[in-house]
């Protein structure tokens, strides 16, 4: 960077020899000098131009390189933060919003860094050095030139006041446009099937037009900004010309010097416009940057409490093992001595059961290391409550202790809170009351959501274990009965899958999810209706696959396919966010109750001949 700046300074200085040399030609001409002298000055002009072009060009290239590297780090840091954001936060804001930040805002800042930074540096250098040059010609020229400054200062302040809010609303409008565009493009198949393309086109058009209108309002503001700068130009030029006029009359300077001063000032127009206009790019970049940094901050502050509330006593921040640059930089709350209710999520202090004595490791006492006895539970949930909105609890007073290696099925009607419970145990959501304790190592959650990541299939699996060898990946695929169809893909494990690539069925996608589970190899696994998407035919296969993938792990299985519940070690029945029943399949079917009813309907649909 220092080298880049030095090159820029040298290049700018080389460029600034031009006006005095031109002034020199004027003087030589009026004094009737020889051809040779004038050609010599011409050679000087050429040297100056080449020097400026080479040195400044080199400097700009270096500067852009530095800026681009910084930018790459910034966008990587941002994606890092975005992926660490609590899920509920992302869902509340809409994924399109996040996508817009990941794509548009990053691009806006990239643009600023790419062109604005080098241009701005050059413009500022040119302005500074030109003013110095004018002072060298005669200090009175500098004074005359500075007449323009108050007008310029006023203009920039006038502009900045108006541009800030306008740009903020522009970014919001562009984000909304992006959100609708993404939802529309993503849902194109559905839109076609239902023939609602017109509505969606209209929606996108309205959002796009809104963004365009705001952009044009920005342009109108900019042009008013330039009009004011023109006033400054005219005032300054008039002053410099008049100064030259009187100085030449008084024989204080030569006409060549006055010419050089006028040319200097005229040469200032462009850099000044560039520099001041970059206030503009800076505003755009700043509001984009705000949105990026906002995400990074959210992720930082979210990472800290997570480490406390879900951390197991003997390991500290077990739930947040990846302390990347984002999380590590915050330090703050997670470094507090004992966590205590105040450091936990809001509402925790009010929940009775969570404030149990230290022996039951409630509340989030991360700082007191407690060796757990051999038969200690693998998962302990106490007094757990959760709500998206305060008046609508999704879960309340959940107490659940799961022994290592135990397989617990959670059943209940849709909307009973099963998925939320799974997410809370997995640490994906944070409880609003009570606490969740899981052992050292990690919990992996497999949901009914099947997303296959775009790219080669093996890369998708390696998300779970980046260092996995081809043999390990193949072994995982074999374990989930997927190797046969994977080998039949055009390029086997290297086939591009996901959106834009080869489409796999829901069942196949879920097989991949189980293969990821095997590669991740966590002690505790949570399946949230992980076999649901495939339909019964696929479900049977997936249940077999799940059994293989879960062997040797503690498991919580959210299932409405009761075959899975029937073979579990214990069944927990949820209704309206509370546990209403638990026991083995035999115990629960032997007495009337919600599970017995469910089982009745289920087996009626499946008469065994």
């Amino acid at each position, binding site marked *: 960077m220092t080298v880049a700046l030095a090159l820029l300074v040298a290049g700018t200085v080389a460029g600034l020899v031009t006006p005095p040399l*031109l002034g020199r030609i*004027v003087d*030589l*001409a*009026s004094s009737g000098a020889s051809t040779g002298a004038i*050609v010599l000055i*011409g050679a000087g002009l050429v040297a100056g*131009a080449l020097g400026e072009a080479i040195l400044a060009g*080199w400097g700009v290239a270096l500067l852009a390189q530095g800026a*681009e590297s910084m930018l*790459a780090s910034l*966008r990587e840091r941002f994606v890092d933060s975005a*992926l660490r954001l609590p899920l509920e936060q992302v*869902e*509340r804001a809409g994924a399109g919003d996040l996508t817009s930040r*990941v*794509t548009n805002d990053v691009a806006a800042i990239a643009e600023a860094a*790419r062109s604005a930074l080098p241009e701005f540096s050059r413009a500022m250098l040119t302005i500074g050095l030109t003013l110095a040059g004018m002072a060298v010609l005669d200090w009175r020229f500098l004074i005359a030139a500075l007449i323009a400054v108050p007008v310029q200062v006023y203009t920039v302040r006038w502009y900045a006041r108006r541009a800030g809010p306008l740009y903020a609303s522009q970014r919001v409008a562009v984000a909304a446009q992006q959100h609708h*565009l993404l*939802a529309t*493009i*993503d849902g*194109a*198949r*559905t839109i076609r*099937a*239902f023939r609602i393309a017109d509505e*969606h*086109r209209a929606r996108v*058009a309205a959002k*796009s037009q809104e963004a365009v209108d705001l952009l*044009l309002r920005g342009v*109108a503001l900019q*042009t008013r900004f*330039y*009009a004011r700068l023109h006033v400054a*130009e*005219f005032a300054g030029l*008039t002053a410099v010309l*008049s100064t030259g006029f009187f100085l030449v009359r008084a024989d204080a300077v030569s006409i060549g010097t*006055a010419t050089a001063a*006028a040319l200097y000032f005229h040469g200032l127009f462009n850099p000044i416009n560039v520099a001041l206009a970059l206030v503009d790019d800076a505003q755009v970049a700043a509001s984009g940057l705000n949105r990026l940094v906002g995400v990074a901050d959210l992720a930082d502050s979210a990472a800290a409490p997570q480490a406390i509330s879900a951390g197991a006593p003997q390991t500290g921040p077990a739930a947040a093992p*990846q302390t990347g640059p984002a999380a590590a930089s915050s330090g703050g709350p997670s470094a507090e001595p004992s966590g205590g209710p105040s450091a936990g999520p809001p509402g925790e202090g009010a929940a009775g059961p969570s404030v149990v004595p230290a022996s039951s490791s409630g509340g989030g006492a991360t700082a007191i290391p407690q060796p757990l006895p051999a038969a200690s539970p693998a998962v302990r949930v106490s007094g757990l409550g959760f709500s998206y909105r305060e008046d609508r609890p999704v879960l309340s007073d959940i107490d659940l202790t799961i022994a290592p290696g135990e397989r617990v099925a959670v059943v209940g009607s849709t909307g009973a809170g099963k998925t939320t419970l799974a997410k809370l145990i*997995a640490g*994906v959501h944070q409880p609003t009351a009570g606490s969740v304790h899981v052992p050292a190592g*990690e919990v992996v959650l497999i949901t009914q959501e099947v997303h296959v*990541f775009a*790219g080669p299939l093996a890369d998708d699996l390696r*998300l779970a274990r980046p260092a996995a060898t081809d043999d390990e990946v193949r072994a995982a695929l074999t374990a989930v009965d997927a190797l046969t169809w994977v080998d039949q893909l055009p390029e086997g494990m290297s086939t591009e899958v*996901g*959106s834009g690539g080869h489409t796999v069925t829901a069942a196949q996608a879920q097989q991949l999810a189980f293969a990821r589970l095997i590669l991740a190899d966590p002690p505790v696994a949570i399946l949230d*209706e992980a076999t649901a*998407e495939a*339909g019964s*035919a*696929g*479900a049977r296969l997936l249940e077999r696959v799940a059994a293989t993938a879960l062997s040797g792990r503690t498991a919580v299985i959210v299932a409405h396919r009761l075959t899975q519940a029937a073979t579990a070690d214990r069944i927990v029945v949820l209704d309206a966010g509370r546990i209403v029943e638990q026991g083995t399949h035999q115990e629960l079917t032997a007495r009337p109750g919600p599970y017995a*009813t469910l089982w009745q*309907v289920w087996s009626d*649909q499946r008469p065994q001949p």
Partner: protein
Amino acid sequence: MIRSALAPQRRAIALGTLLATSWQAGEAAVPFLIGVIIDRAVAGGVGDLALWLGVLGAVYLGLSYSFRYAARSSERASEQAAHDLRMRVTQRVLHDRGGAETDRLPGALVSVATGDAARVGAVAVAVIFGIAAVGAVLVGAVLLLSVSLPLGLLVLLGTPPLMVLTRLIGKPLEARSETEQEHAAQASGVAADLVAGLRVVKGLRAEQAAVARYRERSRSALAATVHAARAESAYQSLVLSLSGLFLAVIAVTGGLLAVRGDLTVGQLISSVGLAQFLVGPMSTFGWVGADLAQGRASARRIAAVLAAPEAVPGGEAVPVIPASGALRVRVSTLDLTVAPGEMLGVVTTDPALAMELVRLLGRSHDPAEGEVTLDGVALSSLAPADLRSVLLATDHHTDLFDGTLRGAISLAGRASAEVVDAAMIAADADEVARSLPDSTFEARTLSGGQRQRVALARSLAAEPAVLVVHDPTTAVDAVTEARIAGRLRGMRAGRTTVLVTTSPALLAVADRVVLVDDGAVCASGTHLELVTRDETYRGTVLA
């Protein structure tokens, strides 16, 4: 491509060009006037100075207003053209015959519809200011000619080769900028894909691996950008050198002429000032060239999307309305018939075949061999939109769009309130409505079971003559599913319904069920019959 995108902005571009040229003419007059002022004022007195400063003021007023409205016109043309392109891309993606999404990430398509559209729109600005720069050169030349014939000719004859040269040098930049943009689009596509799979990433605790993957793409994008930035600054340096050389030649020539007495000092200053001013318009050619190059690269990507081969080409006929709803699928070894008004259950042992069947019926694509017919007419001969007005085939994965629940189910008011009510009750979506605090929702916040019920209600509310659904209740519990199955029949009475599913609850209400194994129908009968007599069926359905 660029031409057709900018054609509707003809007026704005013409106005912008006119005003921008007048602005540049004003800018050219300023250095000329500087020379005049020095000449006249040195010879004359304070009165002359005041007069010419007044002229300068008038020129400033003109150029300021010209610039103001030139900028507004050009930006309007640019933004409006980008908007139109955005809508054309959207329209192409949503086109009845599909095909634009093949081989493209949704994130990449969004980037085409936003970034690339904007870059093509920006060509309008480049064109306007490019033409204005040409105008500036011309005005400068005319002013120079009025000062001195040789100097004017020098500028007039020297500029065109210079422009051609810059243009030639700028060519290779185009390829660089294209690779750079591709890398950037890929990186942002990966980021968008990771965000789309955020739940999976979170569930796996694979944030770190995901970030590593993005970083890899981001780094290769960085390498491409740095490459392009270097090329661009080298290009700018060359343009700067060329224009500097040009200025030196003019200044020296002017100086020599002045020594010979052919020019006054003021005229020399004017010419030198003009030559220096001309560096501006000429470097404009630099960025105009770069913008044109970028615009062309973007236009190619947009054109590729717009010209993407249709997934289901051909077929303009309109199905007979009202359709009686007889279907026949004869594709490779599969031969399947659905009678008008029948509720048919289709069980496939191969889930991939089920998905394929639904897509063939909805004409998302056409079979490679064989055909699918509706009332005896091949689907491939029917216009997709008209076909879908009588036949609705929904994938297992259907998207819900944010908005109000009733708005989503009624398809923006197409279905009457009574139909919506009935559909919501039939699909048990009324329970979902009760659980929402206000009736608006964001698709992502619904649970899987809720999403499926809303989607099913929407399909039912569309009341198509033929409805094909694929595993619509996999995330719904047994009791609710049984309730939905019971109501489904009433809602679809007299209309053809194909249930591609392995759910016993749904199959139990079908008139007839066919079992497809090994790519062919191997059994047909009611659910109960098949349960009693077919081992494969039991294995597939009663698992």
